[in-house]
């Protein structure tokens, strides 16, 4: 389930980076560091802003530095969203 989620985020991010860099999505390397693509802090703010909107959750721009590639950032997000989902479920099921 989290793998599916991770793939979805990866695909969405690759498309976005391809659009920003004006290259075909197939040319985007998901293990290359964002800064190697020439993305600076202003780009990090707009990428995390758009990504946050897409996922319907708030995302700190610093996440792009803690998880500096498409694949590590996607994995982190998928895992943390799954953890939050599990937390929400178990809270719903908790005795009142």
């Amino acid at each position, binding site marked *: 389930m989290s793998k599916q989620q991770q793939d979805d985020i990866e695909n969405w991010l690759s498309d976005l980076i391809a659009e920003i860099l004006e290259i075909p999505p197939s040319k985007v390397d998901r293990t290359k560091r964002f800064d190697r693509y020439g993305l600076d802090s*202003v780009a990090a*703010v707009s990428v*995390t802003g758009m990504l946050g909107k897409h996922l319907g959750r*708030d995302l*700190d*721009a*610093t996440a792009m*530095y803690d998880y500096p590639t498409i694949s590590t950032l996607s994995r982190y997000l998928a895992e943390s969203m799954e953890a939050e989902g599990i937390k929400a479920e178990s809270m719903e099921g908790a005795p009142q």
Partner: protein
Amino acid sequence: MSTLPNPGASAKAIQFHYDIGNSFYALWLDSSLTYSCALWDDHDTLEAAQRAKIDYHIEKSRARGQARVLDIGCGWGSTLHRLTSNAGVRSATGLTLSQEQAAYIGQQRWPGVHAHVESWSDHVPSAPYDAIISIGAFEHFAKLDQSPKDKIEGYRGFFRRCHEWLPPGGCLSLQTMAYENSTRADFSPFFASQIFPESDLPRLSEIASASERLFEIVSMRNDRAHYARTSLEWRRRLLRRRLEAVALIGEDAVARYDKYLQLWAIGFHIGTMGLLRLQFRKLEPARLH
């Protein structure tokens, strides 16, 4: 004692940022309206971390129990209030270039607290001060277009004044952002034109050379991670009150603050900027010139 030309940001440039509206800042700063890097250490609320930061500077300036304390760049007065209400200080004087801030402090009617709309460079005290604190204002004491020599000379004017106003062995506790792994050339045009006009950051080496033979540096902390956390916390609070913020200052201005707080968080997180807390002790006797 004559006054000096203000080497840093003009009152107009300061008011551009700080006078956008007290109720806007009240939406996302903590309830004491402290607008500078907090000290998180063992604290996990913004409120507590701001108080800890203020107490840190009260301790380092040795202000506790003193008669007269000066706060240079006093914001909305959180340090002044803590000095008189908690640290046993009889009289706390604050300087700010923001009219809104001074008006707010006046409205509080805090006993023993006085705020003036005046640059440190124009300040002529009626009597010396026992301790001096300056938090998050030094970032406004130089301009990007100054030569490196003029920049240090401007800072030195500040340290000279503090030196004149303190008793032998008196302390100044200073907190400021600084260039860390970056230079003036990296100063973002977005900040220079839309957030903090007429302002430049110091380097630690410039602070050291500007204070040489006037003060000795007794202690220093670089807490840049604390500012990354403070900026992100401010932004979260701003987003939570987004609609009210938009109603007060408009969509574009809120977007500007959102972007600035995120860029700051990144800068402190990756170390392009540092956050220095420095304790200075007056050197005696000093050869001033």
